[in-house]
């Protein structure tokens, strides 16, 4: 029985570890400036936890085989423990876990402790059951007012956001269903939600932030590769949660300018 347990525990450990190490399924290729740091921290954590995982499971398997009762007489070793060992492994885990945390903290701080830089592309992202809307402030650089009582999802676009047409700043606001942003320039996103909590999750950009009714959450990211990247809502928001997706389209600055100008022209 001890041998079977050893084999099963070891096999499970090897199989589980294989798919991690072979990266059969892994984080998608990162396309934002933050991805390198996040992936690096993931890798460090993965290596440390992986070593501990393999060591602990292998030891467990080994011990149950090695110390199986084998019918011969004789007793188990009598020991109530070893204080020195307790102190050693407690200290080691403190150093390991807290140290790991401290290594990762600067990356978090860089991502979240500062506001977006001046000159970032500003996009307001609004989640509602079950769609994302994106708003650009237009040439005046200011978002027009929105009012909940004006919201009409069936009207789409401006109606869905409840844009107040009387506000002069709203005249040049562009509202789209696809989020187009220029590459290699910071994007400031202002996250809002109308009804329930949604979460703006773009795995390739290593970006996630809940959009909460009543809050306007300012975040930023810098895409570094052009392409189309999928948004998947990551907070349960109701029956259509699974289909609340969208696209972040990262293009060159000139392409972006043309696209925005064309949207602006459509509006006039």
């Amino acid at each position, binding site marked *: 029985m001890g041998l079977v347990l050893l084999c099963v525990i070891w096999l499970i450990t090897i199989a589980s570890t294989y*798919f991690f190490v072979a990266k059969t399924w892994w984080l*998608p290729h990162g396309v934002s400036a933050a991805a390198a740091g996040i992936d690096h921290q993931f890798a460090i954590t993965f290596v440390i936890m992986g070593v501990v995982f393999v060591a602990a499971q292998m030891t467990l398997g080994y011990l149950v085989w090695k110390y199986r*009762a084998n019918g011969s007489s004789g007793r*188990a*070793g009598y020991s*109530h423990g070893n204080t020195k060992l307790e102190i050693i492994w407690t200290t080691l885990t403190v150093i390991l876990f807290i140290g790991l945390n401290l290594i990762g903290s600067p990356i978090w701080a860089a991502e979240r402790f500062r506001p977006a830089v001046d000159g970032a592309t500003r996009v307001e992202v609004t989640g509602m059951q079950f769609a994302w809307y994106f708003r650009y402030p237009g040439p005046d650089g200011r978002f027009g007012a929105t009012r909940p009582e004006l919201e009409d999802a069936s009207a789409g676009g401006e109606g869905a956001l409840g844009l107040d047409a009387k506000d002069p700043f709203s005249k040049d606001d562009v509202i789209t269903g696809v989020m187009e942003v220029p590459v290699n320039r910071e994007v400031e996103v202002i996250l809002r939600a109308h009804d329930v909590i949604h979460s703006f999750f773009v795995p390739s950009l290593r970006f996630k932030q809940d959009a909460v009714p009543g809050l306007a959450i300012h975040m930023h990211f810098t895409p570094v590769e052009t392409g189309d990247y999928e948004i*998947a809502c990551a907070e349960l928001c109701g029956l259509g*949660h*699974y289909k609340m997706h969208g696209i972040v389209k990262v293009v060159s600055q000139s392409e972006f300018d043309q696209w925005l100008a064309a949207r602006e022209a459509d509006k006039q």
Partner: protein
Amino acid sequence: MVAQELHGHAAPQGFIRKYVFSLDHKIIGLQYYFLALSAVFVGMFLSLLMRIHLIWPTASLPIVGQINPETYLTLLTMHGTIMVFFVLTTAPQGGFGNYFLPIQIGAPDMAFPVLNMLSFWTTFLAYMVMLSAFFVTGGAPLHGWTGYAPLSALKSSGPGEGLGADLWIISIGVFCIASLMGALNFITTTLDMRARGMTLMRMPLTCWSWFITAILGLLAFGVLLSAGILLLMDRNMGTSFFLPLGTINGQLTGHKGGSPLLWQHLFWFFGHPEVYIAILPGMGVASQVLSTFSRKPIFGYRAMVYAMLAIGLLGFMVWGHHMFMSGMSPYTAFAFSIMTMAIGVPSAIKTFNWLGTLWGGRIRFTAPMLFAIGFVSLFVSGGLSGPFLAQPVLDIQLHDTYFVPAHFHLIMGVAAIFGIFAATYYWFPKMFGRMMNESLARWHFWFSFVGTYAIFMPMHYLGMAGHPRRYSQLTEVAYLRPLIPLQRFITFAAFITIAGQLIFLFNLFWSMRKGKKASDNPWEATTLEWTTATPPPHDNFGGVTPVVHNGPYEYSVPGAPRDYVMQTDPAVVAVH
């Protein structure tokens, strides 16, 4: 300890007083156990339907018919709620704690038998209210077991958010009241009802785990109860605790000024300690069983006690790690993250000590021992994904993906369930006077152990690939489609694992009638429950009160006549 002498109540006669509205902690323990047993099969059935729907979204099933996206969310909500409250909170604490805490500390009953009866029947009421949510107009709620507002606070946010959601909240509120009563009883019993010589540091680690769990329950359930009342008021009385100015389906909600994050703070202030409420008794049982069947004292008894106390204390300071992506201040994330990493330390101490207990032992591979070894393995696997999720910077990628269900199912779900299985196989002889069938138990173990890994290990891979949780269909988001084969594998693994649980069910009921007769101490164990008759008499020790001379795990004492010294035996002096 004086309380004991004033305590006794006569054995009841009629069926109703003896088995239904019983004051006997042993009967109440069994009542809790069977409630949890029914709940675990309901919860498991719901998860089976979920797994089927994910792979065959258009399949029409007997009885339930075709599952649509909102039904999937209903299944998910009720699966989580029933499992967390009516299984993981109920079986280890209400079931085994009730049955064995008094016996293991040498008491004739719990401190407050009437309160004990009330807490069971209140739990039963909560369970009935929860199940009734399936049958009302609109069905059960779809807001997930975490019930995030505003989704849970607005009746028009989706099907099931009407009466079904009200019943869900009421059920949880009633459950909180029951758990508060239970917690008071456990704490008082542990502090006041111990037999002579049963010092705190001679208590079995199971008793320590039930005691600490009760303290956590006392502090946590009150908060959830309050939060539930506020939520109910937001829904039905026009208040706005959790609701800001907003719309639903384009209509103004009529609320303003509330905060959706307030719900999350209150919920997780309960919710994180709840994780430890589920797993601590499992740790206690694992320690007890590993020591018994390694024939060795537990390695580092004091360290084990301090580690559980540390886990209990830190457990109240880490709730914010569920909220790194919620819009909470990024500075607080910093503090919550450090505290969360710190809680890994006592968890690691426990693992080391379990391995240290096995080291140099003479291991007997009984059914409870297999599940205790499985518990350690699962605890390690589930525990080590914790430091990923504890780091806010990694949560950017992993939060609300399948990585999270992978983590918590391994550590608080299945590890705790393995604790319950270990406890069942270990104490069944004492509870029913018969042994469970060992070969069936082994089959049950292999199905459960391998199956669990086959189900939950791949979920880590899904999470890393960015697969969000709680998606009822996998075909809408393009990058999820290549992951469907992995989802299919998980579903097949679930089929097999669930089939394995039927072996357990059969073994349980078959052994009650047909199992081999058990002696008073079939495992040659040391704690007080093994000193009394099988099953124990109404007052547990047949009119005598045990006197304790030894620690709980004196195995293989050099020079002792047998390889185990019971707690009531004359004090041991080890001859080296």
